[in-house]
């Protein structure tokens, strides 16, 4: 039983981190119809920006602050202006292809320009083990879980309780009506891109100590975020959290009890079943796309 709880708890912790990346993914979809296949690279790049800053001798908090600014500029503003805006009127497919190209480009840029091997990354939480009754968890897992949970909660409150947050939701639900109501749709969409960039930077900070900073780390994280977003519900912000935790926990349990080789297998099966039988996701509402 202790083992089981332990696996669930650490699965929840890693799942909460996946949820952060998945959240950005669903927000982008809701606000602008962008399916970002480079989401994994959006997590990988901040990790390397932090490493470069650390390399110049900055302390970690300063390095992370610089990373946040840099990713808002690059993955938020530049991504939106240079890639999404010119492409979005052609429909979903060209944009998907462009983000695929971006993913290949960014990955190899880091491989060629920085390093091809794994790089250690500083841990913001200590890795000491804490005993909670029969369960022994690392402080890192708890820290990651609490921080990720707080961010999701804060974001949720921002979206539901502030005027700006509600305006952002309105844009996602009905762009035209939002415009008529005097909402600056363009600005709201820009906010979403900035939030996605920030979420990616935080995900990088939390996930990189375990994954190590490597040019292809985004492959796994992007895929997990993608599963999480779809399982929870592509058009539901809460869904990303449920999806992320489900993926993390299932992965841990499968790895321990069924077969380490199929660690991803059960989450993947759940992903396929959701797509095929409940495409709006576990928490999602059936979607009526605007034409």
């Amino acid at each position, binding site marked *: 039983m202790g083992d089981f709880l332990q696996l669930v708890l650490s699965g929840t912790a890693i799942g909460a981190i996946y949820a952060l990346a998945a959240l950005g993914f669903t927000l982008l979809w809701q606000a602008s119809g962008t*399916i970002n296949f480079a989401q994994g690279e959006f997590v990988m790049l901040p990790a390397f920006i932090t490493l470069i800053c650390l390399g110049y001798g900055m302390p970690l908090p300063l390095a992370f602050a610089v990373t946040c600014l840099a990713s808002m500029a690059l993955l938020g503003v530049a991504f939106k202006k240079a*890639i999404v805006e*010119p*492409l979005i009127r*052609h429909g*979903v*497919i*060209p*944009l*998907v*292809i*462009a983000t*695929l*190209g*971006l*993913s*290949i*480009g*960014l*990955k*190899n*840029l880091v*491989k*060629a320009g920085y390093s*091809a091997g794994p790089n250690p990354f500083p841990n913001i939480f200590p890795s000491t083990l804490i005993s909670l009754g029969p369960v022994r968890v690392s402080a890192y897992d708890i820290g990651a879980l609490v921080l990720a949970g707080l961010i999701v909660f804060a974001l949720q409150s921002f979206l539901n309780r502030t005027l700006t947050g509600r305006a952002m939701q309105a844009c996602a639900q009905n762009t035209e009506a939002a415009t008529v109501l005097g909402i600056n749709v363009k600005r709201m969409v820009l906010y979403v891109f900035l939030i996605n960039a920030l979420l990616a930077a935080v995900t990088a900070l939390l996930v990189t100590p375990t994954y190590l900073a490597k040019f292809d780390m985004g*492959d796994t994280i992007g*895929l997990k975020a*993608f*599963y999480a977003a*779809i399982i929870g519900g592509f058009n539901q912000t809460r869904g990303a959290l449920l999806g992320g935790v489900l993926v993390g926990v299932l992965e841990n349990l499968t790895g321990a009890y069924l*077969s380490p*080789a*199929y660690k*991803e*297998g059960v989450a*993947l*099966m759940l*992903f*396929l079943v959701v*797509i*095929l*039988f409940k*495409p709006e996701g576990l928490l999602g509402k059936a*979607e009526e*796309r605007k034409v």
Partner: protein
Amino acid sequence: MKLGPIALGLALVAIALAPLGLKNYGVYLLTLWCVYLMAGMGLNLTVGYAGQMSIGHAAFLGIGAYTAAILMKMGLSFWFVMPLAALICFFVGLVLGFPALRVQHHYLAFATLGFNVLMYLFFRNEEWLTGGTFGISGIQRPGLLGLSLDGSAAYFYFTYVSAILLALVLWWLIRSPWGRAFAALRDNPIRAESLGVNIMAYTLLAFAIGAAFAGIAGAYFAALVQFIEPAPFNLSASLMMLLMVIVGGSGRFFGPMLGAAIVILLPEWLRFMKDWYLVMFGLAVVALMIWLPGGLLSIPERLRRT
């Protein structure tokens, strides 16, 4: 317009003569191009003509390759195994496509993506069947009417002719009333439906036939490399195949030929650039989508229009 057939004939002859001036590795690459061309033509049918995104084409290539490799190791003939690989992929395509196509159209992309990852895990982990990461080695090349196709040039000509035959099949498919329904469906699904085209059946068939093409390509691939392991069938391989179709020009008959050449042959010439090649390639794809969403083959039209 008269120039078209002449240029095509010249290109076909030039490719046929190319092995004479190439070393073994060059001939191998040219054969590999033919193999990816077969798979790419199938994907073009799904993506370009039927307008469905598939991000799992390498899984079908893998199913074809493993089917061929396993059965040929058991002593069965290539001529039996290759159509069987096509048939298996066709049915797997139907089974996967049927539920995915019921829902909205980007969901086929998601389903194929998941399917690809799952198949890759299967190829890697089921050692008793696929040899796991050690793969399957010593795959025999087929013979043709008593002729041996073991030599690299002989196998190239065999694959080349097969690819041309497959291209003719595709040409016929697209020209048939049946194929024209695809285009109608991609351009305006609602109008096509009101004219009595059963959207679901047509897209499903396009997807399954595309998968069957990949199955055939897989059998040729297994006999070409004579050693298969899971890596060429992972998700990034599928993404590269999708890019082959898009870069050349999706929905254009010759799109995959150009696209496969860019993805397979160009990196060899630009080898001195190492990883920077893929940086350029990735960013070029982004630029292409922004300025030339129709792919490289739409350049002439674009020039004519301006």
